């Protein structure tokens, strides 16, 4: 991953917490979708679902190269593209659409397929998180563990 040489620990910490946040929201979505698969009722969705939707919405606008997108999201979207992942906008829009339909209590006939897509996106984000983690902790792990 092409991290800048001038990036500070604070910048890298921000990339890591943002990729971690992305993975966390996607995991929350997955949990909500699995609960919804058992009981197709909006009340079973986790309370975090609104936050997940806002995050996904922001990420879609970043992938669409919006000028107003947050700097850190643009960097992460770039890194994901470098990884040649399957993180196309259509995948993200499918997740967003699934959430919206579940919130309305609609029946989603291809929910299983959508959950599979969600898992693919999670794996890509998780991979990215591991890469950023390694970059952040180069030369830092051992002294920390001496505490």
């Amino acid at each position, binding site marked *: 991953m092409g991290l800048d040489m*001038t990036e500070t620990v604070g910048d890298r910490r921000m990339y890591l917490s943002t990729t*971690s946040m992305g993975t966390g929201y996607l995991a929350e979505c997955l949990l909500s979708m699995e609960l919804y698969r058992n009981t197709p009722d909006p009340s079973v969705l986790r309370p975090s679902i609104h936050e997940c939707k806002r995050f996904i919405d922001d990420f879609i606008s970043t992938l669409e190269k919006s000028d107003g997108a947050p700097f850190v999201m643009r960097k992460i979207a770039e890194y994901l593209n470098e990884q040649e992942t399957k993180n196309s906008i259509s995948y993200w829009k499918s997740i967003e659409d699934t959430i919206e339909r579940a919130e309305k209590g609609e029946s989603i006939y291809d929910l299983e397929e959508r959950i599979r897509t969600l898992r693919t996106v999670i794996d890509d984000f998780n991979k990215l998180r591991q890469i950023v983690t390694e970059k952040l902790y180069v030369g830092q792990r051992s002294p*920390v563990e001496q505490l």
Partner: protein
Amino acid sequence: MSNYSDRGIERIESVYRDYVNFTEKILPQARITGTYAPYFGDLCKKLEGKIQSSILILKNQSKEIKEVDSLVRILEIAKVELAEYYHIMLDVARGTSRIPKNLHFFADEMFVTMTFDKNIPYLIKSELSADTPSSYELFKDTARQHLITFSDAREYLNDMRLHLICLNPSMIDNPLDWVLIGHEVAHILEKESLRIVESKYPQIRPLNYSTPYEHPISTTPVLDKKEPKWCLEGACDIIASIGFGPIYGLRLIENFLVPSEQIFDSHPPWKYRLNIIASELERLDWTDDSIRIRDYIKDIKLPSSFDERFEPHAWEDVRKEIRSVMQQRQMEYVCTPARKETIRILTKRLNENKPCVTIKGKPVDPRDILNAACYVEENLSKGFEFREFLIDMIRLSQTDKIYKKIKLQISSSGGHPINLRPFLESNR
């Protein structure tokens, strides 16, 4: 399936048990310095219960998941989240221990002067891998984002803040480099209170999805993604230069300037930044130092594709607003004939290792001592003894300044006893 669920939860609980051991046994032993040191321990401790109840919720809901491919991902992500959060807290506990007390003074004073009564909790952290100083918010912007699947902890962290200023240990040891903290304090002030750059470039906003986005949509045109970030860095350089004078730019030169630079998204090149700093010093009448800085950077090479006249679209407005705020708060470190004379006297005294706390009975501003130290003979200024002496002089000068504040407070309260705690805490 329940087997997978039980094993996944057991792994999360094992990280949790280790974390509890950290808050109960390791953290109380850490000698964290700074006014907000107890705040860090309290938050870590309070999160214990929140994490525990979140695990319980996860435990109950994971039993309902029938698809193993989903279950293992959810629980593995939760485990990594908790382990990463725990690792960050360990790292912070280690890095914030044994920071010199008077290193906090400059940051404390900047926060108080620029925000008046608003409390901005922060700690200074020694960061081995940080070549350049940096800062980040530990709870809302970091811990919360690592604990998304821990619902109770996530909710609790919504309103918690503790900023960290990270400095390399070599900078912590060298009092001349303490002024670099000015740039990081400026980042925190911009985020917490000023919001001058953010109002022009919302692209630099911290990510927060717990509430709908309330900031205005950007109306400033942007050349590319680096423009908002570069504007922010330039703004923080200006704040540090106005607040600390020539020493800020001179320490950047000493620590970071290289003969040839590349262009990156996150920070402008040093040559570009020092040019901004030189302009600001010129405005504050530090003409000789401005020329000195320009002389250092004139031969630095930048890629030919980079237009050195580049300026963020909102730059003029941002600079104007910063100057106005700094002037209102009386934070401008201007070169006056009296200050020039003070620095000349202090330089002489520092060269001779003589006390620098008062001149003709008047207390000396610690910033004057630091700026005078820039002119001390090079052989002397790099020595360990000189640094120790300088640290002592800064401490004495800071103590004197605080003592004067207390006296003023007593006389304005008609000689009645006053609560000394705020004064003492600001110098802890």
